[in-house]
Structures are given as structure tokens and as C-alpha cells.
């Protein structure tokens, strides 16, 4: 998925500590940047689903980078092995690092053990976006869905994550069959 890259021998970036003082930027700066991204993507696609796919792609690269840094910083390099724990890691640690708060809710689908929902009433991503009437299904949190999908997939829990307008914004996580089967096998040991 990601290109393999090697850092140059004496790169200054390697000298820096991973735990660093928290730095902040303004939400306006992010909102304006994100808006340009959405417009750029829109200029290169023909449909809402293509636009969401492009946003999700960019989210994936954010998620992949965030995963590594968080696992090292907050988990001392330890990776999760259980479905519930990786979901909680996302709801708590990932959300706090990205959005400064825990996600509002984490739920499991009643009728399907592969499907989970992360629900955010007012996601930061959508705070300054008004969706045009003719594209009412567009949810730019597809970007966040991409982040979550990358984190799950790179942690060994392959899944598909999509964003929907439901109770605010709901990210629907559908795990691969194999993930749930493995989780059950671990439980029964």
C-alpha cells in the first residue's frame, strides 16, 4: 500500500524525539486547507463516490503515519490483538490525538458481528462544510473513514470503513471475516 522508503543516513528528522511538546494550529487554518483539498479532489472526479474515494485515499496516508507514532508514543510499541481493544484504541487514543477528544460513541451492529460503528455527533472535519443539496449523500468524513481504515488494516485487522449521515456522522466499520474468526478463536483458548 505504501511505498517503501528509506530515510537518508543523517537526516535531522531521526534526531528528534517522538514524544514532543504538543504544538497547536488554529482550526480555521485546518478548515481552509481541508476545503482546498475537497475542491481539488472534486475538480478531478465525476461522482460523489469517486470524490469520497479520493478523500479516503488521502485519509489512509494520514492514518498510516499516525498509527506508528501513536503505538510508539502511547503503547510503548505494543500492538493490540483483539477487535475490541483496537476499536477502543481508535475511539480513545487516536481520536484524542487527532481531534482532542474521544469519539462520542462506539457501537456494535445488532444483527452482524462483523460490523461496528463509531459515531460522532459533530465531527471537526464537517464543522465548516455545508453539503450542497444536489449532493446530499456526500460526507467529507470519508477522509476520517480512510484514516480509521488504514489504522485497522495496518494493525492486522483488515476492514472497510465508510462514512454516513446518521446520528451526526457514523463511520461504519466492516471487518473481514477472517478478523472475526480469529478473534473468536482467541476467545475460546
Amino acid at each position: 500500500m505504501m511505498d517503501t522508503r528509506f530515510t537518508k543516513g543523517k537526516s535531522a528528522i531521526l534526531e528528534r524525539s517522538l514524544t514532543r511538546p504538543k504544538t497547536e494550529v488554529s482550526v480555521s487554518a485546518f478548515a481552509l486547507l481541508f476545503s482546498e483539498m475537497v475542491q481539488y479532489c472534486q475538480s478531478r472526479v465525476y461522482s460523489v463516490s469517486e470524490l469520497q474515494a479520493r478523500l479516503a485515499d488521502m485519509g489512509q496516508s494520514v492514518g498510516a503515519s499516525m498509527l506508528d507514532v501513536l503505538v510508539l508514543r502511547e503503547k510503548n510499541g505494543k500492538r493490540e490483538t483483539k477487535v475490541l481493544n483496537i476499536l477502543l484504541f481508535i475511539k480513545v487514543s487516536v481520536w484524542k490525538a487527532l481531534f482532542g477528544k474521544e469519539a462520542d460513541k462506539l457501537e456494535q451492529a445488532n444483527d452482524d458481528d462483523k460490523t461496528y460503528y463509531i459515531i460522532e455527533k459533530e465531527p471537526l472535519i464537517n464543522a465548516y462544510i455545508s453539503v450542497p443539496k444536489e449532493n446530499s449523500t456526500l460526507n467529507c468524513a470519508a477522509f476520517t473513514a480512510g484514516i480509521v481504515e488504514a489504522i485497522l488494516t495496518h494493525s492486522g485487522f483488515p476492514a472497510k470503513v465508510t462514512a454516513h449521515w446518521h446520528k451526526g456522522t457514523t463511520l461504519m466499520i466492516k471487518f473481514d471475516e477472517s478478523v472475526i474468526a480469529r478473534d473468536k478463536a482467541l476467545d475460546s483458548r
Partner: protein
Amino acid sequence: MSRQSNRTSDSKKMNSELFTLTYGALVTQLCKDYENDEEVNKQLDKMGYNIGVRLIEDFLARSSVGRCHDFRETADVIAKVAFKMYLGVTPSVTNWSPAGDEFSLILESNPLVDFVELPDNHNNLVYSSLLCGVLRGSLEMVQMAVDVRFAQDTLRGDNVTEIRMKFIKRIEENLPAGDE
């Protein structure tokens, strides 16, 4: 108008890492979409310009900074108020030209390039070009035409990041014909 009273002078803040990585994702995508680095630089600058044109309004509303009397004052406001407000860093203003129409912003740290390292095949990429566009766009909205470019960049091995800004001219407002 009633909404204005709810505005606080201090804008809401967020963790810079999401911002940094999101910008990284954008640059990566542009590098995939365009043939060469020059095109990517141009596109980033254009996006920055669009941001600047919108950002100035947000800035004037929140900062309660009045009209600047000269370019030196403009430089100080950009460094001490605008950069601080939006990116959480305060560059220093130096290297004034004798005529006082050109200066440098020196950034000790640039939030756009945290985690970033340029691969060998992107030697001509000016990674933070977006900032040039933002500065150009926002100043244009207050009737100042400026030229903005990167003179030094830590990503290319320089010790600091230096943005060079040159005043070109004051833009005359063209009133629509028939208006007093």
C-alpha cells in the same frame, strides 16, 4: 451581525499533527497527479492563494488589527500576529533591504514539515509553497501586491526556513464606473 459578538479573538486550536499529516497527504497526492515538481509547486501556490483570499477576512475579524501604516508594520503583524494565530509559531523578521521594501521571515520550526523528508527524486519540490500563496492572496485583499518565495528550506538541508517577501506595489481599488 448578531453573530459577531460570539466571536472570540482567540480562535479555536487543534493538535498540529492532524494538520501536518493532512498537508502531507495533499502534497503526496499532487505528486502522484502531476508530472513534475514545478507543476506541484504551482498547484500548491494556487491553493494557498485561494486560502489567503478567504483567510484575511477571518484574520481581520479575530485579530482586531487595524490598517498598517508601512511595510515594516505589515511584516510585524504577519510574523507576530498572523503566524502565531494560525500556525502557532512566530517567525523573526530580518534582512531588510535598504529601501525597506523587502524582508525575510525566518522560521525556526515550520509546522507543515514535521515528519517530512524529501525523497531524492523530488529535488525541485518546494514543499511549503502553499505558504507563499497564502501570504500573496491575503495581502492582495488588503491592496498589497507582493512577491513571496522560499530562500532557504530546512527540508533541503538549510539550517532555517526563510521566506523572502518583496513589496511590489499598492493595488488601486477600481471603483465601478458611476460610483462616487
